[in-house]
């Protein structure tokens, strides 16, 4: 019997016994619903973390040279911390040496940061701002867009002019009701002329990205960020993901040479990428996904047992039908195919309903608790695969019993 015949027969059978079929596939549906919901939530969190870390904190295809990691795997011990503090600082000379070693098409920027106090004539104080003394290439590498005014130019960088690009919250706090462009904001008593306002960045891991002020690296801002003691970060950007390794190696080489490390010594600096920053998240995500699959799997096993029971009942109820079919020439494999198809169709149908409900549930959870949610295509494939697998596993025993019935005895049933 061809597959589509078996399938058609299975669908007809399910249509005839709607309520029974519904209860039969409930177990699988519930299992798949939770599987999809958990995976969607984890995926959503993962998307959020990835885009936040890769896009906003570190930049795409970007590696950052630092004295020690900004993103740490787990807790940092006291001893580790002390070791890190003994490392040589990243100097301005290091930053330029790295720039000179990079290929033409690679991006490069210095980004030194520190929290500072600021004042303006238009308000009575405001919150602390994260000050960036940064070369203008940073705007391009980090994809920072301007809504008002402009970013500062290379000339302004070279001349070290006291100009500034501010975040949207900085504007709201320090220039309420006035256009900030062309007006001054004071950091450490020194005025910086605002030339541009950044578009809204939001927050990442609770850090406000809009309470910022950017000024040319060579401007007096570097005094407030303490660039002479240690640079917070030197960013390098590869032209393509494939070129990332090469760029990282270049930075490594330059820094090892400058720090005179012999081959056996470990790096006394770190070149951080989104991949390295995300490694700890990947571990967490692995556990979450494993739990998200294991727990619903119990539901699927129960669902499979229910299907097996119902199929055994169906075989008993339809013994006479099996006898008739056999008398008309149905072979063992035809009968087997019929019942296997029925169990599998039921189970896959349950999985499909579960997928729909699961996405519904994850959307509901995400709107109720503000959890991000995202669709992982592999979870759909997995759910359908599991559904089919459960159906086949649950159907094999009843189907084989049906196929082995003696036609004479089966015909005599009822």
């Amino acid at each position, binding site marked *: *019997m061809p597959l589509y015949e078996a399938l058609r027969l299975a669908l007809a059978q399910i249509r*005839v016994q709607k309520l029974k079929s519904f209860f039969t596939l409930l177990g699988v549906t519930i299992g798949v619903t939770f599987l999809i919901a958990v995976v969607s939530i984890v995926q959503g969190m993962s998307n959020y973390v990835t885009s936040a870390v890769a896009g906003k904190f570190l930049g795409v295809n970007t590696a950052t040279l630092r004295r020690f990691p900004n993103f740490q795997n787990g807790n940092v011990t006291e001893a580790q911390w002390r070791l890190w503090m003994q490392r040589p600082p990243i100097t301005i000379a290091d930053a330029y040496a790295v720039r000179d070693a990079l290929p033409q098409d690679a991006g490069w920027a210095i980004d030194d940061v520190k929290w500072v106090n600021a004042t303006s004539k238009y308000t009575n104080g405001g919150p602390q701002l994260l000050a960036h003394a940064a070369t203008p290439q940073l705007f391009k590498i980090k994809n920072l867009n301007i809504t008002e005014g402009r970013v500062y130019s290379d000339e302004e960088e070279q001349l070290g002019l006291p100009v500034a690009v501010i975040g949207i919250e900085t504007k709201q706090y320090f220039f309420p009701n006035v256009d900030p462009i062309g007006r001054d904001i004071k950091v450490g008593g020194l005025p910086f002329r605002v030339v541009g306002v950044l578009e809204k960045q939001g927050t990442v891991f609770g850090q406000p990205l809009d309470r910022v002020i950017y000024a040319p690296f060579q401007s007096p801002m570097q005094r407030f960020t303490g660039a002479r003691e240690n640079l917070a970060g030197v960013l390098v950007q590869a032209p393509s993901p494939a070129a990332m390794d090469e760029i990282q190696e270049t930075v490594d080489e330059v820094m090892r040479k400058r720090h005179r490390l012999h081959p056996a010594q470990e790096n006394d600096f770190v070149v951080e990428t989104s991949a390295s920053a995300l490694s700890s998240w990947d571990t967490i995500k692995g556990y979450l996904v494993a739990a998200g699959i294991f727990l619903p799997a119990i539901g699927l096993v129960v669902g499979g047992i229910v299907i097996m029971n119902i199929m055994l009942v169906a075989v008993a109820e339809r013994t006479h039908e099996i*006898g*008739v079919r056999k008398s*008309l020439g*149905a*072979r063992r494999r035809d009968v087997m195919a019929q019942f296997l198809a029925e169990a599998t169709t039921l189970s896959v149908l349950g999985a499909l309903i579960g997928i729909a409900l699961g996405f519904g549930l994850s959307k509901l959870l995400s709107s109720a608790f503000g959890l991000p949610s995202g669709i992982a295509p592999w979870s759909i494939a997995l759910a359908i695969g599991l559904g089919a697998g459960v159906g086949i596993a649950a159907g094999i025993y009843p189907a084989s019993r049906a196929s082995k019935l003696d036609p*004479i005895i089966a015909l005599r049933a009822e």
Partner: protein
Amino acid sequence: MTADVSDIPLSTTGERQAVVGSVGAVPGKDWVIVTRGITRDYDMGGEVVHALRGVDLAVRRNEYVAIMGPSGSGKSTLMNLVGCLDTPTAGEYWLNGSLVSDMKDDALARVRNREIGFVFQTFNLLPRATALHNVELPLVYAGVGSAERRKRAKEALESVQLGDRMDHRPNELSGGQRQRVAIARALVNRPAILLADEPTGNLDSGTSEEIMRVFEHLADTGQTVIMVTHEPDIAQHARRVVVLRDGRISSDDRRENFVKKLVEK
């Protein structure tokens, strides 16, 4: 196209003895059924029951044979063996040139599908399927495509005057109509034999006559028909009557002789 009864060749006793006697030999093309000393034993909880104790039966193409006997005579067992639903404990059974007594499950299913059309006392139609779908079933298992299947099932239903009942389910049909659907189903694969098991057992006498006329017509048009029954009235519609007793053939006569004996009793 009703042919005269005498036009249909009946196997003579001599011929039958000849073909049944040559054990192991492939019967000639003309012989649809040849059994040589088939037995069937059942193990009933340690006690062996001999349902058939050596039956030699030869049926030629185009014959219309009734198998009679009281209950317990072994006629149901014989019918199961002839219908390839069961295999004999010993002996040979040749159906349409192939030795089916040695066949296993799936091969037997194939033979049932191609060579045998069953008509049962209780019709055995699938209750939830339409008449058309019921008739299509043997073609499904023969692997016939759906368009061809529909066409042939329609033709089969039309040949039993049910062209206007194709979309009815069995419970929307009368007993006679149900049995005619079953006959259409039995014939749709153009089997070598039509095998009917008490085909009128669940029908009133009027409807029984109607079904017997259908069988008559089929026999006239060249279909080999074997009918198992315990009713002499029904059996005498066939052209040859085989009577079983205690697992053996006790008589094998032309209809005329059978009727004569009936009257003598």
